């Protein structure tokens, strides 16, 4: 019910310049291969939505694909800064980056609201922080029963969700397990959804801790083994912590990053990916 297509075809058909794109995967199952294909296709003016913009956003931002970033934690986990992200925010290179900044809890509830067809979510959060003053997507709300003051966050309704999962069957039903993050919410909150998977299988044999996303809420699926590297795919390969550490040096200087982009992204072929 969701067509199985090649990586380049999937993204060419589903992601357009100016789209808002939810790129999710919480440390686990980060859709790196799909992000690199977006860079190869020279997408521009994207609004990138992601709780934890890590290397994948650093790369998209450095490559000039991103106009706006909606996020809650932008670092290289356990390593340090995202230098391309900082270069964009601190120096407007390669061009200025607009940001809509939240906490994880706020972003999670924004996805939940979007997935639920509600215009807003409610949480106990942000109260007393300076985050409130820098976005119009956080507002106070009063409980109609107790009069208590709480915080509302605007729903996220991305044009496209791009996620990576372990498996899909030939009908396009998607199965993922391990750390679940917000992928289900991102897919259900978005108008369209592209899923890359480690493998296409005949039968999604049930697995402990696995969730299944039915094919009828997925736009298309592409088989991309290793599509989450240097992140990991639980049950397939481990996180390349050395790769994350190595990124610090690669991303620190614009020239080194440009060279990496040529070799590792433009030098590779999405169809073959």
């Amino acid at each position, binding site marked *: 019910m969701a067509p199985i297509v090649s990586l380049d075809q999937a993204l060419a058909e589903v992601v357009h310049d100016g789209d808002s794109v939810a790129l999710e995967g919480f440390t*686990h199952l980060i859709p790196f291969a799909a992000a690199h294909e977006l860079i190869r296709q020279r997408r521009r003016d994207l609004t990138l939505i992601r709780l934890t913009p890590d290397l994948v956003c650093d790369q998209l931002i450095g490559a000039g694909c991103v106009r706006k970033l909606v*996020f809650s*934690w932008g670092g290289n986990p356990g390593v340090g800064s995202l230098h391309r992200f900082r270069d964009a925010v601190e120096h407007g290179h390669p061009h200025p980056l607009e940001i809509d900044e939240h906490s994880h809890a706020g972003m999670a509830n924004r996805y*939940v609201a979007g997935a639920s067809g509600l215009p807003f979510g409610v949480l106990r959060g942000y109260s007393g922080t300076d*985050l409130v003053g820098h976005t119009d997507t956080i507002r106070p709300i009063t409980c109609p029963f107790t009069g208590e003051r709480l915080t509302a966050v605007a729903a996220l309704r991305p044009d496209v969700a791009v996620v990576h999962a372990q498996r899909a069957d030939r009908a396009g039903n998607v199965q993922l397990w391990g750390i*679940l993050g*917000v992928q289900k919410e991102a897919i259900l909150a978005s108008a369209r959804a592209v899923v890359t998977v480690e493998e296409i299988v005949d039968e999604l044999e049930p697995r402990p801790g696995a969730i299944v996303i039915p094919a009828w809420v997925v736009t298309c699926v592409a088989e991309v083994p290793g599509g989450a590297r240097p992140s990991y795919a639980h049950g397939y390969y481990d996180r390349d912590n050395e790769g994350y550490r190595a990124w610090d040096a690669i991303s620190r200087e614009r020239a080194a990053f440009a060279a990496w982009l040529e070799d590792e992204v433009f030098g590779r072929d999405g169809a073959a990916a």
Partner: protein
Amino acid sequence: MTTERAVLPEDVTADDMMTVAAARMLTDGTACFVGIGLPSMAANLARRTHAPNLVLIYESGTIGAKPAVLPLSIGDGELAETADTVVSVPEVFNYWLQPGRIDVGFLGAAQIDRHANINTTIIGGDYAHPRVRLPGAGGAPEIAASCGEVVVIVRQSLRAFVERVEFVTSVGFGDGPGDRERLGLRGRGPVKVITDLGVLEPDPETCELILTHVHPGVDPDRARAATGWQLRVAADLHVTSPPTAPELRALRLLVPAKGS
């Protein structure tokens, strides 16, 4: 005022002492929401020493994680494999953190101020044009708001310990007494700030952080000199007891000493 100048053994760094002191803050059988980096190291040390039944909860949704190796990120596969259960990110924040089920939140900080407010967003310049753009909030604002209490681990320096944070990412005591209640923050807030020099605790009267412990060999003046406000020293200043042999053994298994 106990000020005998015990010193740390040669092979114990100030960071080691900080980690051990932080680990000691965690009570066995309680639930702890763990930030990555120093907090994760200290929490995992506690689980390997006096608190084997400490429930570790990471914002990746891994509840009851028992990592055999120290995770680099809050989402390492090791956490999911060893957890009692793995839930979605919305669930860990909404069903587990927000209602106040978690006893202790363990946080790091780039900047912390006199009233224990935390900044992990920007340093220098203004929000639109910061001199240094930090990673941002992550799970910290709600951890600081909703955990029963909060323990902060941060190396003490003039850069990090400021009169007033440039950006309030996570609220400690706001501008002082009554602010947490006024803001509807239901947890008690920061009860301890563990540094490489000692331990700071909020004065019950003023909610101002004061120095209550120094680590062995640390003169209170060093702590004062590393603090951006007039740091008050508790009348009954204590000296942290040095790491025990079992604590050191566990720490070394967790993080091999530099160069080894």
